[in-house]
């Protein structure tokens, strides 16, 4: 991949001497910084980048927390799939649902759900805490304080959770 790009760059910068002119060079850097197309880098400045190790995020707690927060999406997708299988089993009849319920009781399913539960709680908390950054509510000229927006998320969370539990358990 890298070699192919190099060949491309060589083709385009046909006059190598002109390409080495300092002003040209500076211009190309700024082009690179604002370039919209990541595949087109005229003078392949990729070569000057510092290589990042793949596990750059394990050494610092904030970085690890960032990756863990991003990985909560895997737990979210996991539950979405479990819910889909549950609906499918429900639609196939009592026996299929019994089998699905038996799977839910296996140690593997319990462990997976326990881990996923911790992750989705982490997802909810980080999501609600970030929501004031994404949502700016103004009343007249005043901006609603961040705490109020975050708190209203938590209140909604409690109310919806109670409503869900009530609907499912009393059905």
């Amino acid at each position, binding site marked *: 991949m890298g070699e192919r790009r190099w060949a491309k760059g060589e083709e385009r910068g046909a006059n190598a001497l002109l390409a080495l002119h300092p002003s040209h060079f500076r211009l190309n850097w700024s082009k690179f910084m604002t370039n919209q197309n990541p595949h087109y880098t005229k003078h392949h400045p990729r070569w000057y980048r510092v290589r990042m190790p793949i596990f750059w995020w394990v050494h610092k707690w904030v970085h690890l927390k960032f990756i863990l927060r991003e990985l909560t999406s895997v737990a979210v997708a996991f539950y979405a799939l479990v819910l889909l299988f549950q609906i499918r089993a429900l639609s196939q009849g009592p026996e299929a649902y019994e089998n699905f319920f038996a799977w839910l009781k296996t140690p593997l399913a319990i462990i997976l759900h326990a881990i996923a539960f911790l992750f*989705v709680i982490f997802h909810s908390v980080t999501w*609600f805490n970030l929501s004031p950054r994404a949502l700016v509510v103004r009343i007249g000229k005043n901006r609603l304080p961040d705490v109020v927006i975050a708190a209203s998320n938590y209140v909604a969370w409690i109310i919806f959770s109670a409503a869900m539990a009530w609907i499912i358990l009393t059905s």
Partner: protein
Amino acid sequence: MKKTTKPFWWGLFGAGGAMSALFIPILLFLTGLAIPLGWIEAPRYEALLALVKHPLTRLFIFALISLSLFHWAHRFRYTLYDGLQLKHLNELVAVICYGSAMVVTLVAGYTLWSI
């Protein structure tokens, strides 16, 4: 200005993030932990089927499954991009992530439609 599809995917990501943050913890706790472990009595099959057959419940479950997966697709895509630095596979990763979310959305739509 160059048109991109980024705001569209971000919108699905945001909607899915909010919906999953509000509803998944309680649902996951009930169906995955409290009921299988016997802390709470399991609802009867007929009762659950009747609940799921309600059009509003179907709509809710469809939105929850679909948006949650688009939320995952967007977030996981950038986790691979930043975390594992699979930048050279950017397009492939995007197609696999959003594509699988679309496929599961279709399957969920069909399943919920044909209960």
